[in-house]
């Protein structure tokens, strides 16, 4: 079934994100915060993070291209970015940030450049992965909801159908003439039953 398939996919995606070290436990904390009041809390937070982090990355980039490089300022910016990343559980990004900070503390500009590329890469990869994940999650939720609606609808229809049958069968009891018509329609088994019922009724 599509829904199960989707659900499985969502779970698999999430598991792989954790197994591959893209996310850590903090992400679970965020998920636990999600409740009925804020059903999209995690997604909102992640969006907020990516919006804000772009600005921080820009700051870092600026500081990197300035001559001479102000390592203190660079460290400050990276510290902010690292804190932000760790808040949503972006494990790999955070690790790259730590490496960057090491180079920065050592005053190694070359190392800083290299690790910064890595940082941005990890940041972008995570963004893509999380987008895909939320996409799948949303579609799963949508399909889930749709399926539920569909099932409810079908049930309703079935009930209505049953009620309509009830009416017909009441008529059956009164009008024996109709029997042949029903036989033609092919509801033979049910008619038999009711015929017997009616017979019993008549005997009584």
């Amino acid at each position, binding site marked *: 079934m599509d829904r199960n398939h989707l659900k499985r996919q969502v779970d698999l995606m999430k598991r792989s994100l954790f197994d591959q070290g893209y996310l850590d436990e903090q992400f679970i904390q965020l998920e636990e915060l999600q409740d009925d009041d804020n059903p999209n809390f995690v997604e909102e937070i992640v969006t*907020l993070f990516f919006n804000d982090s772009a*600005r921080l990355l820009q700051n870092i980039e600026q500081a990197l291209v300035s001559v001479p490089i102000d390592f203190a300022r660079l460290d400050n910016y990276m510290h902010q970015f690292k804190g*932000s990343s*760790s808040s949503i559980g972006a494990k790999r990004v955070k690790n790259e940030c730590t490496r960057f900070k090491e180079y920065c503390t050592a005053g190694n500009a070359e190392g800083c450049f290299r690790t910064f590329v890595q940082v*941005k*890469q990890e940041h972008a990869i995570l963004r893509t992965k999380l987008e895909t994940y939320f*996409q799948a999650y949303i*579609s799963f939720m949508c399909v889930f909801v749709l399926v539920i609606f569909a099932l409810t609808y079908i049930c309703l229809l079935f009930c209505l159908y049953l009620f309509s049958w009830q009416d017909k069968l009441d008529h059956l009891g009164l009008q024996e003439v109709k029997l042949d018509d029903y036989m033609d329609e092919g509801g033979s088994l049910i008619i038999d039953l009711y015929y017997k019922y009616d017979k019993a009724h008549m005997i009584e």
Partner: protein
Amino acid sequence: MNQSNCKGSMSTASSSTNWKANDVVPDQFPAGLRVLVVDDDPTCLVILEKMLRTCLYEVTKCNRAEVALSMLRENKNGFDIVISDVHMPDMDGFKLLEHIGLEMDLPVIMMSADDGKQVVMKGVTHGACDYLIKPVRIEALKNIWQHVVRKKKNEWKDLEQSGSVEEGDRQQKLSEDVDYSSSANEGNWKNSKKRKDEEEETEDRDDTSTLKKPRVVWSVELHQQFVAAVNQLGIDKAVPKKILELMNVPGLTRENVASHLQKYRLYLRRLSGVSQHQGMNNSFMSPQDATFGAMSSLNGLDLQTLSVTGQLPAQSLATLQAAGLGRSTTKSSIPMPLVDQRNLFSFENPKLRFGEGQQQQMSSNKPMNLLHGIPTTMEPKQLASLHQSAQSIGSMNMQVNTHGGQGSSLLMQMAQPQSRGQILNESTSSHVPRLPSSIGQPIMTNGIAGGVIGRNGIGDNSRGTGYNQVPPSSSMLSFPMNHTTELAGNSFPLGSTPGISNVTSKGSFQEEGNSEMKGSAGFPPSYDIFNDLQQHQHKSHDWELQNVGLHFDASQNANPIQGNLDVSPSVLVHQGYSSSQRSGQNRNASAVGRAMFSGVECVEQGNMQNFSPHLNNLLVDNSVRVKAETIPDANCQTTLFTEHFGQDDLMSALLKQQQGGIGTAETDFDLDGYSMDNIPV
């Protein structure tokens, strides 16, 4: 937005949870605890708010320290506890901590991603109740109410004790308490009287303080002796008893030495922390300067008393003796000791900082020092830095002394009872560099795209993923667009496996394939032209128009700019990959780099209709200058395509798409997509 956020959520600052310490706490406690959170990182702020709400606390969030301070001042009893980040752009977290601790005496919890021992120690020395390491877990927040209870309990105890200050009976007992209280408890004392009251009292007591002064006045020479003794013994082995013996000052008790030693140690730790950071972060120095200055200024008037006592060096010995023997305390004893302790800090800090290596000089200037109670001889550069901090604090050079002018003038300035807010504002304004706001604006493009991704539907999400596929450039010249090496990987599923088995994403990936394949289809023929694109503006112009044309094609949204943003990087990427894989020469690579660069710039340019035109200034070594142009209309674009693209089927597909829906184009492109797939690979 943030200000309104702060103010809006302050509505619940009632005294609902205002309870006396000696009463039984309300039943629902700790629910309803009023927490103020200060952090410049919006992500963290929202997460914390949510966590605290889950703990059933009343949360107010703030992203600026100054706003937080003003809120606290407006509503003195509006909050029970404050949680603050350490690194903030407008004010150092420790400074905020001190202000809050002194003005409002609320428990403050510091937070940081930095878990280095130094920083944590700094938190402790500045009086933080607790120090949390980011990322903060909800479990850590559940127990913050304990700090509120503890503080209230201490406060109540002190209140009770200090309530009998006016009577002479309990003064001895109080003085003892005072003597043994550590500097950390000073904050509690502040609660017993208001700040102004203390100041007034100290003013009144000026004349009589010399005789009634209970505390040891650590004059310069005394302190010199102390430091000499400590150095002789070694800082680790310096025990009060031995120091006392070495100093051999009559009337000095072991307790005096002990408390002084404690303060000296704290000071040294602070100093060592500062010196470590000096190489790294100059801005750390200045807040510290301001911190010291602020601290000094708080006890400004105490200097007067000190100077008064200092004027009579003989009498200081007498007071020492008196202090040593009798510990007679007066009404002034309660605020005074506290004030004295602070005073000593202020006295010590500038002196120790700048005079330690120059004890000889200081001793030579003794008379003057004693006269002002202030060290007047310092090294020029230290003086300069002091002077700077003094100026930043808002120098009111009313009493500039001619003797060793700057040092004393600094402290005399501090002696003026300035409002803390004044100090705060002026010092922060001087010490904190402000990031140019214009830089932040262009980045909003990225942000908006991100926002689109989050908010819009699935179709747009696909767009978002397409947008992300920009390969990393070799240098830092690329913009903070998203870079991913997965692009090659991503192009595979597009071609080989027709979409992931995901029901909805299949359609989305096809759409992606659309936009990307269009790009790749479009560019290889024109690649030769582009290869020649070295530094010619008109060609870059074409390039931009091509891009723009593609933007139009791909835009299925009501928001064309977003579409532009999304498509062009993927276009560029394909172009880049195809080029690099074809030739693999440096020239191409550089062309690619420049192409991406210019393309990125184009994209930015496209968005520059909305944002500031500072982008060009920010780009480094941009050989391809792209002028800001509006997106040309469809007519222009079709001609362009006929020019640069030699593929009729592509053209027709594009035209069809323009006229009709996507469906037709899609079908065409499915085939094309698969055939084109060979190129990027």
